């Protein structure tokens, strides 16, 4: 008993203004049928007396004011959920894309999701070993965290995200593991890289893929991450799996949001992005986490490509304010041929100190990480100084830090794309590098730890 309207009045960008409606609700799901029988979906953005503003997910190309038949469905956008989603590829609106059959849903859920009660959250504190030293050792990922990769065009974020998806494991922990992969506006080749990597390693059997390509309608991207996160929540909290969600590329999502905002003629915030970008992004990112009493968890790795490598651009900036840290890829390291080119200094994992230490990794982990950070920062400073003054003018300590910074990049950061280091290997490597420095400069680690872990203690600095 759904009424059908043929009262479209205006079409602008992906938006349709429908007149003479009654009983329409805000955020309701809408179907628009074209004369050739094609059905497109959209949602109500605003209702004002008897007019409704509808946003079409698949764009308004080919829709005419005269012939569009519009139906309001009285519910939000929903996704059918089942365990059989594992191993399948869907498009950005949740239709199978791999030629397989439709899935038979166990249940349907509104993709908007309701906010988690802060008192129901369980604090993320289980160490995830990704096998990548720059992450495990210095910017540790924990279960239930949202840790984005800030990247730039041409940097290997896809390789890094795929490597994390492949290697991530919680040591000594039981429980099933799943990957939900959400592509928003990425190229066919990049999507294919992930899919074939998942196939090659067999990971596809425990993965659900939602793919909106660069050639697909931009507006569809607004729904895609919500689809993916709804699937992830089902797997995590109903099926009790540990789910890793990769969202790539958030920049494309935000651009789609800007497109809608511009079409609605809203007052723009910074760089034309809508003023509610922060709130909108938080409704995605905050869906990561753990719930008290549930075995599953959702860990998010969003990929954000920074326009002009600019960290202060609104998208990475607002992302950084919501997520629990960030992994920043660096063009200079990439040019030096270092993979993964993670610039550890501005990178951060806010949950690191909850996930490491005695009983989780090792008691010296936190101090060792702080020491490596401080030493690398000082080494980079010494290298800058050497550019101006020449290496010979550096003090003996600065020379040691200079050498340390190079060794750190070459041995600690650099690893191969299939190299899966254990946390012990990473920690040992860190201590080996500290041997380069004079003992008196090791202020961040405790004397007892130096005693225990520093193998070849350099001779005490001899006074002149």
């Amino acid at each position, binding site marked *: 008993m759904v009424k059908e309207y043929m009262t479209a009045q205006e079409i602008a960008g992906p938006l349709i203004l429908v007149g003479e409606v009654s009983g329409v609700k*805000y955020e309701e799901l809408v179907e628009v049928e074209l004369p050739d029988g094609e059905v497109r979906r959209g949602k109500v953005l605003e209702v004002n007396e008897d007019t409704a503003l509808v946003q079409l997910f698949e764009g308004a190309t080919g829709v005419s004011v005269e012939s569009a038949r519009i139906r309001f469905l009285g519910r939000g956008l929903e996704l059918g959920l089942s365990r059989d989603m594992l191993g399948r590829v869907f498009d950005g609106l949740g239709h199978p894309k791999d030629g397989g059959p439709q899935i038979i849903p166990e249940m349907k859920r509104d993709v908007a999701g309701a906010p988690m009660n802060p008192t129901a959250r369980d604090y993320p504190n289980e160490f995830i070993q990704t096998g990548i030293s720059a992450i495990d050792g210095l910017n540790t990922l924990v279960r239930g965290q949202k840790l984005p990769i800030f990247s730039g065009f041409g940097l290997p974020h896809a390789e890094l995200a795929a490597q994390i998806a492949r290697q991530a494991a919680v040591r000594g922990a039981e429980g099933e593991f799943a990957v939900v992969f959400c592509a928003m506006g990425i190229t066919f080749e990049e999507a294919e890289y992930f899919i074939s990597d998942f196939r090659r390693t067999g990971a596809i059997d425990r993965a659900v893929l939602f793919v909106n390509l660069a050639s697909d309608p931009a507006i569809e991207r607004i729904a895609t991450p919500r689809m993916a996160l709804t699937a992830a929540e089902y797997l995590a909290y109903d099926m009790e799996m540990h789910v890793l969600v990769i969202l790539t590329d958030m920049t494309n999502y935000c651009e789609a949001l800007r497109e809608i905002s511009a079409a609605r003629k809203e007052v723009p915030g910074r760089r034309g992005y809508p003023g509610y970008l922060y709130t909108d992004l938080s409704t995605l990112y905050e869906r990561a986490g753990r719930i008290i009493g549930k075995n599953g968890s959702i860990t998010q790795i969003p990929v954000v490509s920074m326009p002009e490598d600019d960290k202060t651009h609104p998208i990475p900036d607002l992302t950084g304010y919501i997520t629990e840290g960030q992994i920043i890829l660096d063009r200079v390291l990439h040019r030096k041929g270092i993979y993964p080119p993670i610039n550890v200094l501005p990178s951060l994992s806010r949950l690191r100190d909850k996930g490491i230490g005695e009983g989780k990794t090792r008691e010296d982990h936190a101090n060792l990480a702080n020491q490596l950070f401080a030493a690398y920062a000082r080494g980079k400073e010494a290298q800058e100084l050497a550019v101006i003054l020449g290496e010979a003018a550096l003090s003996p300590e600065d020379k040691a830090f200079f050498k340390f910074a190079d060794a750190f990049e070459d041995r600690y950061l650099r690893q191969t794309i299939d190299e899966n280091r254990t946390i012990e290997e990473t920690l040992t490597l860190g201590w080996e590098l500290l041997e380069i420095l004079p003992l008196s400069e090791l202020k961040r680690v405790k004397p007892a730890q130096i005693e225990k872990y520093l193998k070849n203690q350099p001779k005490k600095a001899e006074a002149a």
Partner: protein
Amino acid sequence: MTEGKVTGLIRKVSGPLVVADGMRKARMFDVVLVSDKKLIGEIIEVKGDLASIQVYEETGGLGPGEPVESTGEPLSVELGPGLVESIYDGIQRPLDVIRKQVGDRITRGIRVPGLSREKKWEFTATAKVGDEVGGGDILGTVPETTLVEHRILVPPGVAGTITKLSSGSFTVDDIISELDGDGDGTKHELKLMHKWPVRVARPYRERLTPEEPLVTGQRVIDAFFPIAKGGTACVPGPFGAGKTIIQHQLAKWADAEIVIFIGCGERGNEMTDVLMEFPELTDPRSGEPLMKRTVLVANTSNMPVAAREASIYTGITIAEYFRDMGYSVALMADSTSRWAEALREMSGRLEEMPGEEGYPAYLPARAAQFYERAGRVICLGKDGRIGALSAVGAVSPPGGDLSDPVVQATLKVVKVFWSLEDWLAYERHFPAINWLTSYSLYHDSLEAYFRTEVSEEWGEMRATTMRILQQEAELKEIARLVGVDALSNRDRLILGTAKAVREDFLHQNAFDEIDTYTSFPKQYKMLRNIMTFNRQAREAVEQGVQAEELFALPVNGEISRSRYVPESELDELDEIEGKIGSEIKGLIEKRVGAEEPV
């Protein structure tokens, strides 16, 4: 007042904004119930018959024609026993009760009172029948937690003679006392709780200038940029610079009797962190769990945006209520930028003319109103007790850019500025407070306190230290051009001392059991040792000793490990001072001895 409930019909829904028709009689800022789901909203604009309403819950599924009903009351909070240890959303609904009712996710249309109606409190009357009382007078007390004695006050604006008052076990809704109004026959019934509108500052008798510092145990703050009890501070900084950790550290260690922590549009996990950690942590002064003096207001980023706007008012009204009892209250708001963004979002939907960066033109005025509710006051009531409300607001400027309108609006009103910088954070120098650009305007008013409570020489020591840090900044510029070796011996000593100040005093590890909190006596001894070293080293340098020799002395290692000396063993720090003297003397003697034969 008598027109009572006004009802209207929804005309437009756009995000959190609902416009309703037939609302001519409704008053600005009255609370309305929207649709049959009874979602809570507040009137923020009235134009003829039309009222614009900001709705504190998700508006999906609402449409034109649904009813809107005004309650005739402004948005208020319930004030009474049961506030402490609670966690509220932006409009004072207890989140733990919501969870028990509807599960792990927050659904809509839930109405839960801020204070439990079932719980009974042991009330002990301290006033007696026949007393003349007025607003702010204490009727009696309730032991709310082991740390907080809740004083039951006569609400502001109520006065009369007590005709009935008894001790006993009551719920917040029971009538505990009756007053005979000022002879005109009006009778006031008083309960353990009363309501107060959040947008109205609670009255006090007189405002005082602050004269005591809020001791935080954070060395860079207490020693260099102190905030007074009753003062205001602002912590702006880019993400990852450690704003949240500073706020948490203050909430943990500040020597306030009540702490109000507002998580305004921030991460859900951060609130969880507080919820899990505070019951475990013990107050260094009382040995009781910190949670027993804490009230949390949590409106995380994914919760409805309009309630985020209300959350800071809810928080500060509760804070004022405890101030009125004569307590020292510390309020942390993390982050006021999210509050400003909520204002901006509503302003945009109202189609108001935007000011800077799309923020409404009234942003600075609203920010000033908020911070002006802090202060040290003589409370209402006959006993003239003094209460203080200190407010610390975090600001999250885009890209760390301090020209951001929210930062500027805040700096205009606050007296302390802790400038967090990301380059310090990259070097893992925490707290990443820049010692050159930060400031505190409370030094003068706190001077007397420092003289008597810390040390006569404290002010001078601080000034000397700041001068050394300032000189370091200048020398570093020169060293960058000509190299450290080209600097004079004396300048190299300054660089070395500044390094010691930065690394051994300003740097503080929030995650280390001992280092996380440093008392004033320990701060004084730590800084005194560095300054003693500096003074004696300068004499040695005059005698021809090289700065490098001085910094190679073993005592340097002890100075830098001072931070790990427990509060109970501060004598060790005095021993270090002795060693400084003897080791430097040794060097001078060696040098003089070497020169003499010539």
